[in-house]
């Protein structure tokens, strides 16, 4: 019974933890501009992250080592260093965007402008990562993130035009007023928001700290294959609400307030309370994950001691890296860039960096030295290669599309 509860808790945590500011922004924006014509991208992205998270989890459970650790061994120090620099830059970028999301959520409940919240949130974040028992935090924020389900439920109160929605879903492509270029631009942003690089490294590092053995694979897989798709449903909530409220009147979504307003329209102040709780939990949780992930990748590249379970004094370099990453994230926000815009840029650059993350994972998951006979089977390799092709295509197309459409125009 206890094990069943543990598994359920893990799945629920994965569901609530799936959504971050990237999903919120890309989902809402594409919903407003294209209706739900991009719903297939969410499905594709969720399947992709499941495939690769399973691989990373298997590598960790069998070899006892986190995935990024093995990247340097397989690719050599120079290539892995380039990989590290790219991944680290993107992760810190993302951390800034998540912090911005938390601050924006707090601004909606108070009268204080979001910039005044940023230093306070960063301090809270650092305190949480410094000493608080992480498993507790993870559970709390993961479960609180489930409040986002209010969007999925609330949409039925908004009187959606189901016929129009079905037409959009079955006819992927630009709607009147949009072009194929903007359509694919948003598709790439959505895809990048689902296949977030830091997620895989975080998942794998957590597995090492929990000392996964091959027996833990079943639970890890349950978390991935049930948690992530349900999490994708929550992300879809933002898209479908924007499709119902904003798309018919030709509006766009440029602010967090617009993204969450439909919950209020549907369910009143209770809806608002739940959605803002959900957004806060999702973005703060993601900020914790990206902060730790930034530390993990650097520490695992250089072989330092690391971990949220280690006392800070026995992992000084790791904790310093996390602190420095936080400061860089805050500095990015203090340039007064709009956090929504920062998120848009972050998604596109994430898309470019995706091959850096996923090629090494596919390579390592096929290495018998680490996995023995638990290397990728034919299905895992087939899916892995298919997604690698998609990931490389997205990476190549991302920047040209960004320039051509002027960041979505």
């Amino acid at each position, binding site marked *: 019974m206890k094990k069943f509860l543990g598994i359920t808790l893990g799945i629920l945590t994965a569901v609530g933890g799936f959504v971050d500011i990237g999903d919120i922004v890309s989902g809402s924006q594409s919903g407003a501009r294209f209706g739900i014509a991009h719903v297939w991208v969410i499905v594709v992205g969720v399947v992709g992250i499941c495939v690769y998270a399973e691989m990373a989890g298997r590598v960790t459970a069998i070899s006892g080592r986190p995935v990024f650790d093995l990247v340097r061994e397989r690719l050599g120090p120079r290539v892995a260093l380039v990989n590290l620099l790219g991944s680290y830059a993107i992760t810190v970028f993302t951390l800034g965007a998540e912090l911005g999301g938390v601050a924006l959520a707090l601004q909606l409940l108070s009268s204080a402008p979001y910039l005044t919240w940023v230093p306070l949130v960063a301090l809270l974040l650092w305190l949480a990562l410094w000493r608080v028992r992480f498993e507790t935090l993870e559970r709390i924020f993961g479960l609180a993130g489930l409040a986002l389900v209010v969007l999925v439920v609330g949409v039925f109160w908004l009187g959606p035009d189901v016929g129009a929605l079905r037409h959009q879903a079955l006819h992927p492509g630009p709607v009147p007023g949009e072009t194929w270029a903007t359509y694919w631009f948003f598709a790439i942003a959505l895809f990048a928001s689902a296949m977030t690089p830091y997620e895989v490294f975080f998942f794998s590092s957590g597995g090492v700290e929990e000392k996964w053995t091959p027996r833990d694979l079943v639970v890890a897989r349950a978390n991935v294959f049930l948690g992530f798709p349900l999490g994708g449903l929550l992300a879809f909530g933002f898209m479908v609400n924007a499709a119902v409220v904003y798309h018919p009147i030709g509006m766009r979504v440029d602010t967090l307030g617009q993204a969450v307003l439909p919950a209020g329209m549907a369910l009143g102040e209770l809806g608002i309370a739940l959605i803002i709780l959900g957004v806060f939990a999702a973005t703060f949780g993601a900020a914790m994950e990206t902060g730790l992930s930034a530390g993990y990748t650097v520490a695992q590249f250089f072989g330092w001691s690391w971990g949220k379970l280690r006392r800070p004094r026995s992992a000084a*370099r790791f904790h310093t890296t996390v602190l420095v990453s936080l400061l860089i994230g805050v500095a990015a926000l203090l340039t007064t860039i709009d956090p929504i815009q920062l998120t848009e840029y972050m998604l596109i650059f994430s898309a470019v960096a995706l091959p850096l993350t996923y090629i090494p994972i596919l390579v390592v998951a096929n290495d018998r030295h680490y996995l023995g006979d638990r290397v990728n089977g034919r299905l895992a390799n087939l899916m892995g290669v298919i997604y690698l092709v998609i990931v490389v295509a997205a990476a190549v197309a991302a920047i040209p599309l960004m320039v051509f459409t002027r960041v979505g125009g």
Partner: protein
Amino acid sequence: MALLIGFDLLDRQILDRDGFPVGKVDDVELDDELRVVALLTGQRAFGRRIGGVLGRWIGAAAARLAEKEPRRIPYDAVDHVDAAVHLSVRAELLPPPALEAWLDQHLIRRIPGAGE
């Protein structure tokens, strides 16, 4: 012990007896008969391995941290090699990492709650 240095040793994680991370095998020291005598780890060794301008810069930064020479782990201390290089000794008995000690002393230790 017949190991292919390139495949099995270099860039592998070094773990001490308790599984505590010691560092990566950044470089190896060979004797005249090209047998591995010691593992080298740390910024200086890494800087030399990377080479080029970046490598020299990393090495110079290490020197400033009072790392006079690379951390050297005699090969006798190695217990076995699988996905990582496992040592038979505890990390405390090895030369300490300069950057870790420096950060601990000047930064981490001063923040309350750092643990003892």
